[in-house]
């Protein structure tokens, strides 16, 4: 076995079991690792999974379904990587572990398998019913398609708008905002492939690479200079992972970064005032993975009358929403625990609204909010911005 990152050299950097990966940096005792908090075993922490990797490398333990369960009982939120004092590349190591488990037929687990098979068959994780990737454009004036008409900017909507009404509305609002800012953009429409985030996170690396090469080639050939996307998972994949596969002839931005620029340039004018008291949830793949903290906050600052209250765990130390990495489909109780923890934290700020910039975070909070006694409004930042123009 050759774990890409955990080679023999790193045995010298053995994890000291300090568990700094489980609590937030400045707050001394506030938990940051949902897996450790829920399952209460060191094995579930960032450090614990490093020990699993070491144990496998040194043949102290064998690959098994029990190991697969622990490795997949993790949102890959990246908090451990952020907080690890020795600087272990935990996410890369965990992805490697998952790859090894997939190669041995021990993963993906349960319903995660259908996410992968759906991507292979239908080009999206949700299955046949959601095959129409242009569905979210219904009701809009026809949008330019890159296959028919050149454009320097592509708006990549991701898979979520095709299957979920709320996500579809987000994309509609983004299209509205881009048009308002007189941005000449195109979409990929039904040519849009899945970005490959789910296969990468679940350990099916060959499927991820296949999708990556396909997407890179298509967009390189399109002549577009910039791809903007509203899905943090897609953003991180395009921005960080694709350059490892092949060279990109285009830049990548998250829509919050792009729209912030439009506001700064005066191309988007915020005219309406609000009296919202809100808190902002940093999506893991936008925040920790991609280091985008300022742009969403600058957008919120520019909305007149909005009062922003930060959660105790924010920015690099934001607590995960619990939705990611196929955990929901296999360990729903754990996923709900994580989401409720975050939702309660949002409510504790006194905010009436939780704003987020990820369709998966939004869905997770909406579902959990529905069954909660004390409700809080969930709004996507793009929806809010569109309402303010």
């Amino acid at each position, binding site marked *: 076995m050759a774990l890409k990152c955990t080679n023999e*050299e*790193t045995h*010298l*950097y*053995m*994890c*000291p*079991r*300090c*568990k*700094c990966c*489980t*609590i937030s*940096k400045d707050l*001394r*005792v506030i938990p940051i690792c949902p897996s450790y908090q829920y399952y209460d*075993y*060191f*094995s579930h922490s960032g*450090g*614990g999974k490093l*020990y*699993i990797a*070491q*144990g496998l490398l*040194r043949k*102290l*333990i*064998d690959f*098994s379904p*029990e*190991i697969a*369960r*622990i490795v997949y009982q993790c949102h890959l939120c990246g908090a451990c990587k952020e*907080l*690890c*004092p*020795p*600087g272990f590349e935990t996410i890369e190591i965990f992805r490697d572990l998952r790859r090894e488990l997939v190669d041995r037929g021990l993963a993906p687990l349960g319903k995660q398998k259908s996410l992968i098979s759906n991507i292979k068959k239908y080009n999206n994780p949700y299955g046949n019913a959601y095959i129409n990737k242009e569905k979210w454009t219904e009701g809009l004036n026809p949008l330019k398609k890159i296959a028919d008409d050149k454009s320097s900017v592509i708006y990549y909507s991701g898979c979520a708008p095709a299957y979920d009404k709320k996500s579809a509305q987000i994309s509609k609002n983004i299209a509205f905002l881009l048009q308002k800012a007189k941005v000449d953009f195109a979409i990929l429409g039904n040519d849009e492939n899945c970005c490959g985030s789910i296969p990468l996170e679940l350990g099916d690396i060959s499927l991820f690479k296949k999708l990556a090469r396909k997407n890179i080639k298509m967009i390189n050939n399109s002549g577009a200079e910039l791809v903007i996307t509203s899905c943090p998972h897609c953003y991180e994949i395009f921005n960080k992972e694709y350059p490892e596969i092949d060279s990109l002839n285009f830049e990548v931005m998250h829509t919050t970064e792009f729209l912030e620029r439009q506001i700064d340039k005066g191309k988007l004018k915020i005219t309406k005032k609000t009296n919202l008291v809100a808190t902002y949830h940093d999506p893991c793949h936008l925040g920790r993975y991609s280091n985008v903290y300022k742009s969403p906050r600058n957008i919120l600052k520019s909305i007149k009358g909005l009062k922003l209250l930060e959660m105790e765990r924010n920015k690099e130390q934001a607590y995960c929403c619990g939705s990611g990495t196929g955990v929901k489909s296999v360990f729903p109780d754990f996923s709900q625990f994580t989401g409720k923890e975050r939702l309660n934290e949002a409510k504790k700020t006194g905010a009436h609204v939780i704003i987020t910039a990820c369709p998966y975070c939004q869905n997770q909070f909406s579902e959990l909010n529905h069954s909660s006694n004390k409700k809080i409004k969930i709004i996507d930042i793009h929806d809010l911005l569109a309402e303010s123009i």
Partner: protein
Amino acid sequence: MIRERVKLSKQKREKISRELRRVLGAKNISTNPAVLVGYSGSATVAPKIVPDFLVKPQNIEQIKKILNIAKKNKVPLTVMASGTQDAATHPIFGGIVMDTMGMNKILEINLDSAYAVIEPGVTIGRFSKELDKIDYHCTVGSFPPSISVIGNYTQTACNTHRSSGIRDDILGLEVVLPDGTLVQTGSKAFSATYPQTGWHSASNSFPDLRGLFIDACGTLGVITKAAIRIYPKNEAQAMPIASFEDYATSLEYMKKIVRANLVQHCSIWHWGLYTMIDHLQTFGQGAPFEIVLTDPWEKPDERPYTIVVPVMSGYREDMEGHIKACEKVAKELGGRIYNEELKEKFPGAYQFYEEHFIHHYPTRAFMGGYAEAMPLFPIVLADPTKVASLEKWGLRFLRKSPLKLGLSYYSHSLDQNRTIFLRMTPYIEATSTDNEIKRALAVHQKYLEEAYRKYGAVPIRNIYATSEERNIDKTGGFGILLKKIKNTIDPENILNPGIDIYHQGVR
């Protein structure tokens, strides 16, 4: 008596599992290898051994029953709280690992007597946060917030394992012996007859048994509670850092201010180390190896060879006087107060010292190591009459090794400079091969042996059972007595037999 690694048959394993499950319930025991491997060791070069069972007791009664199961089945039992760093709690002979972090109550905070009674699962971060609310602090040391207070206060490496004030922090202990006897030390022992008796006194007219369980690596009993000394945050704090150009003069300065009762604690930092700490604090990760590689007796520029960091607190009027006194003594010895320059040139280092010594914040800083390299730990308690010579010799000896050894050190005053903690910090590259590591360890061992033989130093940590050395056999009657105590308390050698600090002929 357990003398070697235990290999359990499938039937025996299942039998023990059943017995443990009856005591703990299914939730607090695991035989899952993926869980067990997390308890196989820590960040040291000691071999990693996956134990057979993990148990997480929630109270003393469960602990007594688990000990009984271990004895009955002749299975080793190793107690681990947070299990950070020290090889003392590695399950080298397998068997049962008892994770005591589930017992995590702060039972009492007594401000009249300035102590708190806590269980092993109370972490430094949580404890210091609670004390913060009432303007008190505990000794924080080089500890990250997530580790056990009791675990780290009782594996003290000769009472040195904390650098924000090396004090005698354990006021009393509650321990379960292998035969199930519950022992409480100090004044609390009398609560067996007078239930209202508290923990206020470490002594009780009988021999002080606290020491028996401190640095015992869990080999004499399972610690279930400790009364910890806590300290008020006084009106004012000060940290007048002085700079010098040689270790001997730094030592002289340290001795003068410590014995004049000006400080609560004092330490000396070599330029290599405060440079690395500056990098660590500023960038959040260890310094690149190239920084570590410079000859330690040749500074790269005008930065001081050493800085001396004293810690003091008290009334404001006191602090003003103490600072003036430190300035005077520093000047007399050819040094100067360096605070402003340190803040300007090495702001990360200054921030570290301030957070650590003034504010008593737990720190993550050391968990990643000072540098992107593998540290060795040739640490000794040195004789003050010879430690300056040891520093000179030690730096050159360690540096001339054929391996690429980065090198620096720090030094603490203990017991009013009656002994000096000296930690040389050689590093080898993270990519070193197993052979290179062996050679580095041999050099490390040679340094230690010379430090003991020629410079009157003593070791601060036990050596693992896999080593040839047996420190206990070098201690004459002391070692003989300790072995007798171990044989009396734990005749079957159930508790952490693999560490073999008593040299009972185990393999």
